[in-house]
């Protein structure tokens, strides 16, 4: 089975071919090693980095941007977003501060992506 995909690891967007031969998966057309990882993962269990905003307790900003530290399974995205929209972040907070640890046992954290002074 061969599937044509476009790698989304970076803006180059390599057109790759992912072939599954029983237990062996080969990726062709990728310009870097991330393309190989992407192709294999996309075939077996697609993952995405999620970026969103949480309500912020600050007079400077109504929302504070956050992201997952690594891609998480697509099936978890909706419940993660729901949880994030309910999580209030208190200022002051530093860019990189963890607001959610090991989400749903995935080993992926959610961090703040902007520093906010009090």
């Amino acid at each position, binding site marked *: 089975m061969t599937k044509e995909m476009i790698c989304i690891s*970076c*803006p180059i967007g390599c057109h790759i071919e992912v072939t599954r031969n029983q237990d062996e998966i080969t990726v062709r057309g990728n310009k870097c090693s991330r393309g190989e990882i992407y192709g294999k993962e996309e075939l077996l269990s697609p993952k*995405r980095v999620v*970026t969103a*905003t949480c309500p912020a307790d600050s007079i400077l*900003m109504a*929302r504070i*941007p956050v992201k997952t530290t690594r891609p998480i399974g697509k099936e978890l995205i909706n419940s993660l977003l729901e949880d994030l929209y309910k999580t209030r972040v208190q200022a002051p907070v530093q860019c990189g501060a963890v607001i959610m640890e090991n989400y749903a046992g995935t080993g992926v954290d959610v961090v703040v992506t902007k520093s906010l002074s009090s």
Partner: protein
Amino acid sequence: MKEITKDVVVIGGGSAGMAAAGEVVGKGHSVVLLEREEILGGILNQCIHNGFGLHRFKEELTGPEYAERYARIIEESQVEYYTGTTVSEIDSREDGKTVFAFSSEHGMLRINCRAVVLAMGCRERNRGNIGTPGTRPAGVYTAGLAQRLVNMEGLMPGSKCVIVGSGDIGLIMARRMSWAGAEVKGVVEIQPYPAGLTRNIVQCLNDFDIPLHLSHVVSKIYGKDRVEGVDITPLKNGMEVTEETFHVECDTLLLSVGLVPENEIARNTGIKINPETNGPLVDSNLMTSVEGIFACGNVLHVHDLVDYVSEESQRCGEFVSTYLKAGDREQQYSMVSGSNLKYVIPNRFSSGRDNHFYMRSLIVRNHAELVFSLDGNEVKRKKIRHIQPSEMISFTLKKEELADFNLDEQSRLEVSLIG
């Protein structure tokens, strides 16, 4: 009124302005940076998605993270920066320049300097620019405005939307609106190919099963007080096939129909504008037609990656420093874009050093070649695996590659794409 005297004024505290100011101050010159918003970072602050910094920092950052890295450099440097400050005018004289600006904190600011860097970025084209027929209800937003509302103000522009234009901001907003609970009914693109990066088609549309209507236009907007729906019509050979028009119910229309360099100040200063980019014409040092005024970032031409903006602006900072130090200017020659290219930046080149060019293709091709020729003689040829108008081409022509050629005042370097 506050009066300041510095070597350089940088107008705009986004990615371009911060990179240029950081470079100039690092070379030992005094710099003032002026930013209209209350915080540094410009448009990056509302671009909360990831994908920034892969070239510049070798890691994938979100917009605010990318901005914060540069803002920290500026805050810790000798750059004197003013936020909440809007520039109204540049007075350019032979013996120097004066930049007029105002802010609620200082009132009028009058800054005397030797060089100015324009780094004001770009603005969005809107409904008036594309002339969509129909009523004029609430609910028609530019995609960037909607992005600001959702990501910074925490406001939802609507619940059922159609997006016009497949530029990156439109695609990113399709995903953002979906993740924020809205239904995105489709993206309508007038061209037969998408205007945004391919990765964004995959992760922002395909992931959500949002249809992309290529070679289609929104032919009518319905609704009295609020948008109630739109008509979408396919195009064949540039003509609307009206009998195949279909209707989509929606309460919001987001327009992602291109960006235009923000050049009111440049025009008023008498700077010549390049009709292909709508930004200033610049020489090989990114200096505009007015001596001592430089331009970089999206005010010069619209970039698709912020990494390129930073790179170009840092280079601009170096050129500004060289300009301030050296009395006489190096010899420059004409640089033009040939077949299949919309434009090349800069519009002049120098022979004694490497020249870096940014180009935008007019065609979509796999396996094309970029060809540089000087007065009809081929200088350099490079294979490119894939080109499309939405993906800027960046290329450095090395000093050695021009070494064997004789140059005179009439010399003209032409770059073309062969598909």
